């Protein structure tokens, strides 16, 4: 807008500012990505190579490391990946579906406890799960559910932050008239929710499904207290196990490989969807 006033010196100052901004950004990006670069390089190198010192070029032991790690008896990695995938997928589905349902109940119907219910959800949104972990573990052992996946999956039906996000989304894109129109067409309320509301919520569901999946995939605190038997362990527990084993005696190629397996799939999926996710963060504004 100030093009008319812009003289030569102002133009140079903008250019200098741009250059400085890019230098600053590139330094930050370097700090962000460098650890992952070393991870990538070292997961392709064998144990003796890694011990010899650092190299900026990848080695040739990628397949060798994968095969060693997969056949390691101490670390049931394949099981770990499958367990993590299974739990995280269930959590993503349950938390988005039921949060959508809860938000819809509050958004579309007028009932006496409507406001109180929403206030309650807002109030508990930020309370961390760790503070009730003691009671949770005791309850789960009373239910004989210790060392099963149920305590890691079912509680995700009540995800206050996801409900909040869904509610926000509905306020901007789900007019109550749509529900009324569907009623006039004779649809029952569940049908309306499943066939009309869910498709409208798709963008919000996608973003929240990704966040729920990732936070369950990364979760370490509760699974470590619930799961005991090796064949039910998830990836974060295996990483902790690797850490508590005598690190230096271990094959470093395998160590880097396990870290890479835990990190890179999420990273690759993220870079395909990043624009979408970043927009979701800005829109939701609240994230756990």
């Amino acid at each position, binding site marked *: 807008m*100030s093009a008319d006033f812009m003289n030569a010196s102002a133009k140079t100052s903008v250019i200098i500012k*741009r250059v400085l901004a890019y230098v600053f*950004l590139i330094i930050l990006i370097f700090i962000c990505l460098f650890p992952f670069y*070393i*991870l990538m390089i070292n997961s392709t190198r064998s144990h003796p190579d890694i011990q010899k010192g*650092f190299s900026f070029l990848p080695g040739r032991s990628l397949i060798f490391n994968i095969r060693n790690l997969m056949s390691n008896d101490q670390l049931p990695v394949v099981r770990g990946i499958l367990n993590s995938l299974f739990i995280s997928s269930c959590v993503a589905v349950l938390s988005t579906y*039921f949060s959508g349902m809860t938000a819809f*109940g*509050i958004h579309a119907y*007028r009932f006496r406890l409507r406001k109180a*219910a929403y*206030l309650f*959800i807002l*109030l*508990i949104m*930020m*309370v*961390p799960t*760790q*503070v009730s*972990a*003691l*009671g*949770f573990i*005791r*309850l789960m052992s009373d239910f004989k559910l210790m060392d099963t996946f149920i*305590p890691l999956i079912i*509680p995700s039906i*009540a995800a*206050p932050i996801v409900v909040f996000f869904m509610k*926000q989304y509905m*306020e901007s894109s789900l007019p109550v008239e749509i529900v009324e129109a569907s*009623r*006039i067409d004779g649809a*029952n*309320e569940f049908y309306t929710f499943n066939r009309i509301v869910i498709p409208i919520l798709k963008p919000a569901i996608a973003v929240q499904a990704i966040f729920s999946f990732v936070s369950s995939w*990364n979760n*370490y605190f509760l699974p470590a207290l619930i799961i005991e038997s090796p064949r039910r362990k998830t990836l*974060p527990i295996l*990483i*902790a196990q690797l*850490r*508590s084993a005598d690190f*230096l005696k271990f094959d*470093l190629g395998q*160590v*880097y490989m396990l*870290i890479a397996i835990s*990190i890179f799939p*999420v*990273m690759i999926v*993220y870079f395909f969807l*990043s624009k979408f996710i*970043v927009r979701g*963060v*800005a*829109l939701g*504004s*609240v*994230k756990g």
Partner: protein
Amino acid sequence: MASKSETFRKHKSVSYAKWGYIFITPFFLTYCIFSLIPLVSTFYNSFFENYRVGLEQIGPKFIGFENYLEVFRQGDIIKYFYNTVFIWLVGFIPQIIISLLLAVLFTDLSLKLRTSVFKSIIYMPNLIMASAFSMLFFALFSDNGPVNNMLVSMGMKEGYRFFANVGSTRGLIALMNFLMWFGNTTILLMAGIMGIDTSIIESAQMDGASSPRIFRKITLPLIRPILVYVLITSMIGGIQMFDVPQILTNGKGNPDRTSMTLIMYLNKHLYSKNFGMAGAVSVLLFIITAILSGCVFLMVYRGKIGTGGLKK
């Protein structure tokens, strides 16, 4: 429900109210069973002596506030509280400064920066598994790790023992927290800055205000709600700090428990089945987080935070 169609009026008929309850029931039922009852049970347990010595089970026996007194008598909790706050601050201060700077740069249209790539990259560490990230840092900074190799090849006589020194261990935890959260904070602050009415800034520019002055006098006061929100949510997250220091120090908080956090302390009691003490620590943590959550609740409730980051 189709039979009720005769009562259909312009406003929704009362008969639909029950569907509201039906739709919110799964949430509240699950919440009660898996969160509310455990929370009450945690409070209850904190008043009982209940632990194990070897194979012998002591308690449960009602002892009132004795567990709480014991927690403070041992004094460790003060130390761990200090550790947690210290590490959080060392990560948070650079985080808020750099995020503010980035948010201002990204929203300054005259600079014509290609922001979307940068935003994507700086947000990425937030989605990384914290335990794997921490394990990676442990491998990178271990005594014979790549970082020490580089230091030696750059001319240092011998490597630096990062995990034997208090400052470097805490510093690395703070660095990881910083890397994981500054992208998120940047995006939130950007949403706040973009919510400001551009005509205010334009008229200030017309009046000849310099950009640092505009930032201090206009931008900063207008995004204050979002700054407070970021501060409080970061505090709540800071109190929950666990995965990173737990994996990095193998649960020991080395050196000499200087990087032991509150949740690591809780985890230790839970793991050793010392339920009385674990209960007391949980209740204390609940009180702190409840106060902080209350602040977030008020902000959301008053409509200061919501869609688009900032509501007018």
